[in-house]
């Protein structure tokens, strides 16, 4: 099963695939040019308290994004199916 979360919400150490860049043209273009595009596989390497920046690794590169930007990058992650209580 998969779920879509923002980079800001995603847990440290988790991997996922970028599915949406939810922002204007300037935002999308900037991230695309820096190597964060739809379909890019990313791993979150750190977050910080008080809405501080988030860092992700994609291939050989590592990017730091402010919290606001990170919350507009939507990532598809695998979630384990758990707690199924039905028969």
């Amino acid at each position, binding site marked *: 099963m998969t779920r879509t979360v923002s980079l800001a919400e995603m847990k440290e150490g988790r991997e996922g695939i970028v599915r949406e860049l939810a922002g204007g043209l300037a935002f999308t273009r900037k991230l695309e040019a820096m190597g964060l*595009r739809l379909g890019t596989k990313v791993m979150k390497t750190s977050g910080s308290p008080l809405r501080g920046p988030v860092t992700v690794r994609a291939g050989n590169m590592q990017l*730091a994004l402010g919290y606001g930007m990170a919350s507009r990058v939507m990532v598809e992650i695998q979630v384990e199916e758990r707690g199924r209580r039905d028969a």
Partner: protein
Amino acid sequence: MRRVLLVGNPNVGKSAVFNRLTGARVIVSNYPGTTVEFTKGKMRVGSEAAEVIDLPGTYSLEPTSKAEEVAFKALDELGEGDVIVNVVDSTNLERSLGLTLQLMKYRKPMVVALNLWDEARHTGVTIDAALLEQTLGVACVPLVALTGEGVKVLVESISRPRVPTFEYEDSTRWDEMARIVGKVQVVAHRHHSLMERLGDVSLKPFTGALIALLVLGASFETIRLIGEGLIGHVFEPFFERVWAPLMLRLSGALGSGGFLHDLLIGKLSNGKIDYGESFGLLTTGLFVPFGAVLPYVFAFYLVLSLLEDSGYLPRLAVLLDRFMHVVGLHGMGIIPMLLGLGCNVPGALAGRIVESERERFICTTLMAIAVPCMAQIAMVVGLAGRHGALALAMIFGTLFLVWLVLGAILNRTLRGESPELVLDVPPYRIPYLRGLLKKVWMRVASFVREAVPFVLAGVFLANLLYVLRIVDLVGQIAAPVIVGVLGLPQEAAGGLVMGFLRKDVAVGMLMPLHLSFRQTVVASVVLAVYFPCVATFAVMLRELGVVRMLKASAIMVATALVTGGLLNLVLWATLG
């Protein structure tokens, strides 16, 4: 003349390629945004000379920032016979090729330099350069610019560049790129290296903060140890045992007095040379830059260069990002502050690393006001050290508070918002020793070349100020402020006037006044805050423009008066 334009993403090594092509020396570091101006040099292409232009790094040719606009404009002005050298990061081929494809649309002669080739190999990336060359229709040259491997082939390719043949639709750029990368690149699966793990640990809030404290503490201690060691074991013994006797002999030969004697040797105290008080060109004039300041400047640049080349600074920028937003800057705003600690001139230039006009104003103004340069710090340590560590702590603590409070005020009152951090965090790299030493040498040499004449001029001027009784005059006119508000002796006017030219000499002029604890702290802080030295002023004027510089100047003077006055009151109330 034919032009060679170096274009590429930030931090791919354009400046290192520039140095290799031109034999010039420009600063190379491991963080995006090291080059903020565009630098020109000359190289030989075949039998003719060509102009090489090192452009600030850009991720795309859709101008979204100042640096990108610069690249955009330079490309638009390309003429007949000009060549684009697209410097590419081989470890990040996918990202780099985005720009390459955009450049191809210009249909200009072009060469692709696959830089960081060795690092790509080490990280398990194999690129088929021949196949890439075939696909794009331009020469693709593997290169290690730092060590010079592949430079010969690159120069050859520049002498007979090809116009790219590759065609694509704009809307399919990313797909095309992915297709090319899939064809020419093989990435071996590998585990994260130790350096990568260390890199990640230094980004996480808790471990990162610990590492930052450790790194900054070690940096501080190293600078202090090297600076003090050099002064105590090399420079002071030289000036005391070798230079002073020589000067005494010269003093005798000049008749122990008179105009020339006082200009060169200055005043003797008890028949001896006192470098702090003599104020002759050959005594204090040489002791200040070489005996007191140079050792610290050298130590500082050694440590700074290590931090720059290792790739630690962008990590510090990420860690401090949240904090820097208090003063209206994002994390990269820490870089101009750190550079400013060496010398405010490169600090003011590095203000371009932050994107908006608003940020640049805050950044440059704060740096000029609250970040003392190493020359000034070294002299303040000499001046205030007499009153112990508490005096030093109060001086630098006050400056930090001024930085924080003034920054917060500017952030609240200036219109607009500061953009968020978007930063490419480069991998940790073991500094290339030869490159590092060259960089330290360049910076120390530039201090000797550019600062020492100013110091000598300052000492000369100091004599003039006293002989022409200008210090008395200014002191009398400004007495209400200097004595009334700041609680300093009237003669401190000399130092405050000199501060416009050179801060280290200005602090030096306070030495003979034998200031009290309170006066020392107030004078040191005010001298740092009230106005930048003339060299910094010139750069700020160029970077900010007349109107903003006037605004910055008003802020400086006001901050100096308020801070100095308050500090004087508080110290007077607590210490009497």
